């Protein structure tokens, strides 16, 4: 192959990658930049830079309450999803592969169904259950979306285990609970952990269930942001978004580092 087309190919590849990268990252970068603007309106370039929208976000009760509520709901949902999901994954792992696969496929339904449909269905039923508008309703709604993630990631981890390890532990006289506690669950921990992270993020970012089964006294952060965009144009949303982007990045890096540390420990 001659040298010229190869160089041209690489140059073209760089151009495509950079263009797509810009399309994906520039809007987010500009939003982060604009969250430091002094202007109340969208004006590019910003007339000046300040932290006023951040101090709004961290000082105003409507924002802090919503943020804390979202963290609390996310934590409860994650705990419940792990508490119910890990045993459910153990149950699936004990079934025949065929039945387990069918059930696992059915488990993706809450994730694949359009969010508005799930939210509407829950709104109608939760009204009848008498819990609509409460924080409990949001927790239960989010649980249905978060649970499948935990079950599926844990099931994948359990299937990757060497069944001989469990058999060896049993043969050495360990009881079923002990095997679970000392062999199966520690080995499946990375899968459980990814599921827990996904469960938290699912709840933390969720808008439609919070809109439909929540109320103005149980505002989550996404709901507060939604109102800040829709009713009045509140630039505090940009500051909140910047905090979210930073938080998500930190969480992502943390997950990567933990996974890496684990991988190098077991290697």
């Amino acid at each position: 192959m001659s040298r010229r087309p190869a160089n041209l190919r690489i140059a073209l590849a760089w151009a495509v990658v950079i263009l797509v990268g810009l399309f994906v990252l520039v809007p987010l970068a500009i939003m982060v930049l604009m969250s430091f603007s002094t202007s109340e309106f969208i004006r590019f370039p910003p007339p000046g830079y300040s932290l006023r929208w951040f101090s709004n976000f961290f000082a105003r009760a409507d924002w802090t309450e919503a943020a804390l509520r979202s963290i609390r709901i996310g934590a409860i949902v994650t705990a419940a999803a792990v508490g119910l999901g890990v045993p459910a994954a153990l149950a699936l792992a004990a079934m025949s592969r065929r039945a387990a696969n069918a059930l696992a496929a059915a488990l993706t339904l809450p994730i694949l169904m359009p969010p508005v449909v799930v939210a509407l269905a829950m709104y109608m039923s939760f009204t009848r259950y008498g819990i609509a508008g409460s924080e409990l309703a949001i927790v239960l709604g989010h649980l249905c979306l978060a649970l499948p993630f935990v079950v599926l990631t844990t099931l994948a981890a359990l299937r990757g285990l060497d069944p001989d390890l469990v058999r060896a532990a049993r043969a050495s006289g360990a009881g079923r609970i002990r095997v679970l506690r000392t062999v199966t669950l520690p080995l499946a921990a990375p899968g459980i952990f990814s599921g827990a992270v996904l469960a938290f993020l699912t709840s933390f970012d969720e808008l439609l269930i919070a809109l439909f089964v929540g109320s103005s006294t149980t505002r989550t952060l996404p709901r507060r942001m939604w109102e800040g965009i829709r009713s009045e144009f509140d630039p505090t949303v940009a500051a909140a978004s910047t905090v979210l982007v930073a938080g998500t990045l930190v969480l992502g890096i943390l997950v990567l580092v933990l996974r890496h540390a684990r991988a190098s420990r077991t290697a």
Partner: protein
Amino acid sequence: MTPAAGMSERRERRDARAGARRDWFPLALGVPAALALALFFVVPVGGMVAVSFTGAEPLSSYARFFASAAATTILRNTVLVAAAVTVTTALIAVPFCLAVRALPPLAGRIALLAVVTPLWISSLVRTYSWFYLLSREGVVNAALTGTGIVSEPLQLLFNWGAVGVGMVHVLLPYMILPVANAVAAIEPELLRAGRSLGAGPLRLFATVILPLIARGLATGGLIVFVLAVGFYITPIMLGGRGNVMLAVYVDMLVNVALNWPNAAAAAVILVGIVAALLAAAAALSRLRFARPAR
């Protein structure tokens, strides 16, 4: 599944049958999760389907939907927008993933990570960021008026174009992930063989690359279309009054018109589109599996 795994699984099952006590215990572990999903997901969805039949006559909510010009226009627009978004994400993802493969491995990994990471960031935030590009005094208008291309800022928001761009931005990672996997799995020897037989880049793409990544493209396309059909945040935020999608219509029916049966019927129709698509995809992949391996 490898034969060894199949064997150990069979052995496992024999073990399970041997110890009668082992049968119920693991299965009982799944009961709480099943109960939670039944009570808070299955029963609600079933209840919603039931509500959709509680109009004046059992099917009157559906009849009303399909008799309404507004509703059928919304249905048509929703499917068209979802299809256009799916095609656009594919047209971006394929060249991107091929380009990533052509780069040095580390650069390629970083590029892929940069484009897929936004998946972790809330779609509300990602959609909102487009305000800063497309509004009257946003980045795009500042650039256009600053360079003198236009004298007055353009109205770039609140139309299908803005909705489409926002949806492509949010959904692109879902297309890139499966396509990148498919592209990474292409054997370099196949490309070299094609090239040495005299195939130009286009021919190589059409006869070697495209068939090899078809499955990844189909997976990505299915996910993107299924998600796009149900979009709510982006059409409301970046669209105008004329850019209503089906999910927004469901919301309007229940929260503005306060009509539960009509809202439920519209929701069932929305689920119907998703279900039909998933069923078709499952049938197609079974057909492919049934064919002898190449």
